């Protein structure tokens, strides 16, 4: 089943009078259960593509489908709803809310989702356990290491049981050991739950985890290889 599809997508940024073409017509289809890496040099368009798939941004032309739904025809609130229910995010910076504990950070998407308290509690504990942080639930982000914060972010991304997780350079700010741990967790969750992962990276050690590697250069997909 196709989790997301991008057809002939372009994205042009205008800064003053200067136009920058971040994507020049990208076609990409991702099916359920994939563990896909988007690779390419800086400025190749991998983050922009991830943002389009994640409905954080809109293509200048072309279409983006999520779970078969044309997301480019949705308004701002409808896109937010689709993100809430279908997509999880892991960012390069450890994107946690600093005033909330690890437990509360994982709880946030469940609150937005309207999950009932008992079910919420069970799900949070399950997710924290899945990333090996059962005993760190009451810690705030500034009391956790970078690796631990990224694991909380993964737990949060998975909390609402989305079909698709998008990770933008998830190990870029981590040392080798923590980076490996994060990739191991993502791979395990992909295998155990069947959730689809798409991650942007240019770290060769991270690329080695991917079963499919999509290479971008100058806003175009230049190579798409499956192991």
């Amino acid at each position: 089943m196709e989790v997301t599809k991008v057809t002939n997508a372009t994205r042009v940024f205008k800064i003053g009078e200067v136009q920058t073409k971040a994507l020049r017509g990208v076609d990409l289809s991702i099916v359920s259960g994939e563990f896909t890496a988007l690779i390419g040099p800086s400025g190749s368009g991998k983050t922009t593509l991830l943002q389009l798939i994640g409905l954080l941004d809109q293509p200048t032309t072309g279409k983006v489908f999520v779970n078969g739904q044309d997301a480019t025809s949705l308004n701002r609130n409808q896109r937010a709803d689709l993100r809430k229910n279908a997509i999880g995010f892991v960012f390069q910076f450890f994107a946690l809310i600093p005033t909330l504990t690890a437990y509360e950070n994982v709880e946030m998407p469940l609150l937005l989702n309207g999950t009932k308290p008992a079910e919420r509690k069970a799900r949070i504990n399950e997710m924290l356990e899945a990333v090996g942080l059962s005993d760190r639930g009451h810690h705030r982000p500034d009391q956790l290491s970078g690796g631990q914060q990224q694991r909380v972010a993964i737990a949060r991304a998975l909390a609402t049981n989305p079909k698709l997780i998008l990770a933008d350079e998830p190990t870029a700010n981590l040392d080798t050991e923590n980076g490996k741990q994060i990739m191991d967790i993502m791979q395990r969750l992909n295998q155990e739950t069947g959730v689809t992962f798409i991650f942007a990276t240019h770290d060769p050690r991270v690329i080695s985890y991917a079963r499919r590697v999509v290479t971008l250069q100058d806003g175009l997909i230049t190579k798409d290889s499956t192991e």
Partner: protein
Amino acid sequence: MTQLFKLAYRNLGRNRTRSVLSALAVSFGMALLLLMAAVINGEMRGSMETTIKLQSGHLQIRPASYDENKISLKWDDLILNPDQVIEKVKSLSQVTVATPRLIASGILTLSDESKGVQIVGIEPDSAANQPFREGMIAGEFIKADDREGILIGKTLADKLKLNVNDRVNLLVNTSNGNVDEQLFTIRGIYSTRTPAYDENMVFMPLVKAQAFTATENHVSTIFVMLQNAEQAEPVAQALQSADYKVLTWRDQNTLIVAFEDYAGAFMIIFYLIVLGITATVVTNTLIMAVFERTREIGILAAIGMKGRGIMAQFLTEAALLATGGVIGGLIIGGALIAYFTVYGIYIGDYGMTGALFEDRIYAHLTLGDTINLTIVTYIITLIASLYPAVLAARMEPVEALHAAGG
């Protein structure tokens, strides 16, 4: 909802000093408004009470032709045999005091100084004279059969350096157009704490005043006090007669009534200025918070929080700031008002034609003003937070996520 408040509370706690200062701005703004409302209220109330007590009464009954500005002593402009009218007035249950008074223009002269005064003939035993009796600071109150004694006010005594038992010469215009003069002895000095009044009013027994001004059994007015001021209109209606004018305290104190209305308008402008300044502080604080937390706004948007959820977040923070500010305002304002209610604010001799002011203003805060100001402050603080809240809600997730801050 609990989460919303929890998150808002923690967000405010991130920069405690800034949050406390913002709440204090709301507190000081509100305290200032409460104090202003209480002072103006107190001033209006005090002035009206003083003027009623000393000068106008709740009602005055005067001859139809009497002109207050001329202080005429012509018999046609006076009430003959006031006892009949007083009897009728006293038959009404709302009336507590009804007493005749004769008012004449005079000049008090010393060997080298003179001063224009108003001579008022009173029935010394009347309860209407209680403010003067209570305000005696030297000597004794005049008696009904005293033929030479007068009372003068403290301000006049101070200005002319007069003391009890000093003898002064009084000149007066009589009813037949002549001028008469006589030496009087100062029996006592009173203070109503209303300098403008105490400088001008000289009291003597009514019978003596009538003899001195050749008005015989006539009086200028019948001074009436009621159980409360609100009874003035119906009692005035009940006493209407073709022979007399019945003037209520409102009729006689049009300046104070008008001033009260102007004070209301002035207060609204003052509210807007102070709350405008307070609102600016709150807006700035929240705008700073929005820019500091732009990336977090992006994260919340990314995980599916809609614009209205983000807006609610900032409005909740503003609501908490407003709550803290309003509580602080009630405490600070309440303490200031409590002090000025007891000790007053000294304004000295603030004389004004048509209105009497005591030398101190005593703050008087009403429950209505307290509730109104609490609600207005709360609403203005929330309105002030609308712009930053909308700013946060309208941020594009992708731009917010890539912001340098937060």
